């Protein structure tokens, strides 16, 4: 550390003879605890070569309710060294040091990956330079003849930084808990499958070898055991599929929904043919989406529309409308419908409204749709009356892609 240029100024402690440059008007050497509400401590790194300006700056901060604890540097090398070794709340940088452009502080912070707010303090800073500083990431700029504004600028810059930190922390927490959850479901699915497979295969072996050789009850019991094990396998398999939605980061690409619906219908062609389903669709837009996931959404919704059909052959209408910067997709059928009071629970994983003999399935399809749609920043819901068909709707935000804007116009 080079003490000749990197000086320490600590208003609370007087340490004579350490070679550090001391603020001449430092009258707060006693280190007494301030009484409430008291000044706010501020650990700051100041880029400044003028003693007089430094004094004005410290005074302005004190007047504004701060108790500044300041290090002063005058070169880029010292700045980089100090800023990496200490934890500063703020950097106050003179823009016009000879041989050193204050803008470099921003570059150094960026290079070192440090998020410390920078307030530019300058005697004469043109508007253009000021704007450039803000563009480069400075929190604010204050002119030296308006230093009364400095405490406010500092306070706001520090508060913004705290908000940024909190936001980042909660983002990290969320990401971690999502990761944990997905890992849990994944591991549980694998480890559950192993013993389950054993139960399923061996009860099946029992059924095969001993059917009719024990009494009637035994056959029935074995059937229940086999059925239970197979159903459990389906649940575990579905849980795994559910946990996989979003376990890998989705790469959103501009996706033509006409092609997506085409792919979904291709996967469903047997059901479409057997049920005599009629599909009526309007031209659909392109949206920013993971196309395989979006295909899954359409496939599940169309599959349900066919599965929960009424006496008449299914007629399904697919539309996409732009409403307030969102694409609202709707899939309307003429099937058995859903009572309004049940409209919400159908999206919950493994929730079913019918017995397995009425309609097969584990109740995973809509839960997966909901997870996918929400990961795309949209919502999903149903509008329906029992016996009057259902209209499932979901939204995908209309992105800022130029192709999409063309489409809008």
């Amino acid at each position, binding site marked *: 550390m080079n003490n000749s240029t990197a000086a320490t100024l600590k208003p609370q402690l007087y340490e004579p003879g350490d070679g550090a440059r001391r603020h001449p008007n430092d009258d707060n050497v006693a280190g007494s605890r301030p009484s409430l509400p008291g000044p706010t401590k501020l650990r700051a790194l100041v880029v400044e070569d003028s003693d007089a300006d430094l004094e004005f700056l410290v005074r302005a901060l004190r007047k504004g309710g701060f108790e500044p604890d300041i290090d002063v540097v005058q070169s880029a090398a010292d700045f980089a060294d100090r800023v990496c070794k200490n934890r500063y709340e703020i950097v106050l940088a003179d823009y016009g040091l000879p041989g050193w452009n204050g803008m470099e502080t921003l570059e150094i912070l960026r290079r070192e990956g440090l998020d410390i707010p920078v307030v530019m303090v300058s005697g004469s800073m043109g508007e253009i330079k000021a704007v450039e500083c803000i563009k480069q990431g400075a929190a604010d700029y204050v002119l030296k003849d308006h230093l009364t504004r400095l405490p406010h600028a500092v306070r706001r810059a520090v508060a913004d930084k705290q908000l940024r930190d909190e936001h980042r922390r909660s983002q990290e927490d969320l990401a971690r808990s999502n990761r944990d959850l997905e890992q849990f479901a994944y591991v549980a699915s694998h480890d559950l499958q192993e013993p389950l*497979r054993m139960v399923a295969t061996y009860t099946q*072996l029992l059924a095969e070898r001993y059917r009719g050789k024990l009494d009637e009850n035994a056959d029935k019991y074995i059937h229940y055991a086999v059925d239970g094990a197979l159903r459990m396998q389906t649940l575990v398999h579905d849980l795994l599929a559910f946990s996989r939605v979003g376990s890998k980061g989705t790469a959103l690409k501009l996706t033509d929904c006409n092609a997506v619906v085409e792919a979904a219908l291709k996967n469903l062609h047997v059901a479409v043919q057997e049920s005599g389903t009629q599909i009526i669709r309007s031209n659909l837009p392109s949206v920013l989406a993971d196309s395989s996931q979006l295909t899954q959404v359409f496939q599940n919704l169309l599959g349900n529309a066919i599965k929960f059909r009424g006496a008449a052959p299914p007629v399904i209408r697919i539309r996409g409308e732009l409403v307030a910067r969102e694409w609202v997709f709707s899939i309307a059928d003429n099937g058995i419908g859903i009572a309004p009071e049940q409209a919400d629970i159908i999206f919950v994983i493994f929730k079913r409204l019918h017995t397995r003999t009425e309609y097969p399935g584990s109740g995973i399809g809509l839960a997966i749709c909901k997870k996918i749609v929400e990961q795309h920043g949209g919502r999903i819901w149903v509008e329906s009356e029992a016996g009057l068909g259902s209209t499932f709707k979901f939204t995908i935000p209309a992105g800022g892609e130029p192709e999409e804007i063309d489409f809008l116009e």
Partner: protein
Amino acid sequence: MSDSQAEVLMVDDSLADIELTSEVLGKTRWLPHLSSVNDGEEAISFLRRRGKYAAAPRPDLIVLDLNMPRKDGRSVLTEIKTDPTLAWIPVVIFTTSHANSDINRSYELGANCYLRKPGNLADFVALVDLMANFWLGFVSLPFQREEH
């Protein structure tokens, strides 16, 4: 494949799966002789004819589970495929896992094929039968080289 009885080594900690596989193999036309061990350490001892495995036969096919206590299938696979006296033996990974990472890693390490254990009896029987037919009936392997 020669006229002599084919040798299969199954490495699996699930006695239930060994039992079932053995039943199915006993009904194939190839009627292989099945040896089984329950973890990776045992498998290596068997293949290197150590200790109680001094007289162990050289397998024509190894059916290897991935997740086992002590030494897992990945380590066993690595040892087999990096040993010139063993590397020629086809190794079929036979496991419950269908994680992409397990599949990719197995092929990286030189697995000859990766099969997931089916969850129900009919599929299990069909798959083991198919595996025996393919590897013991149709595949031509290099001529066996005995180590010196």
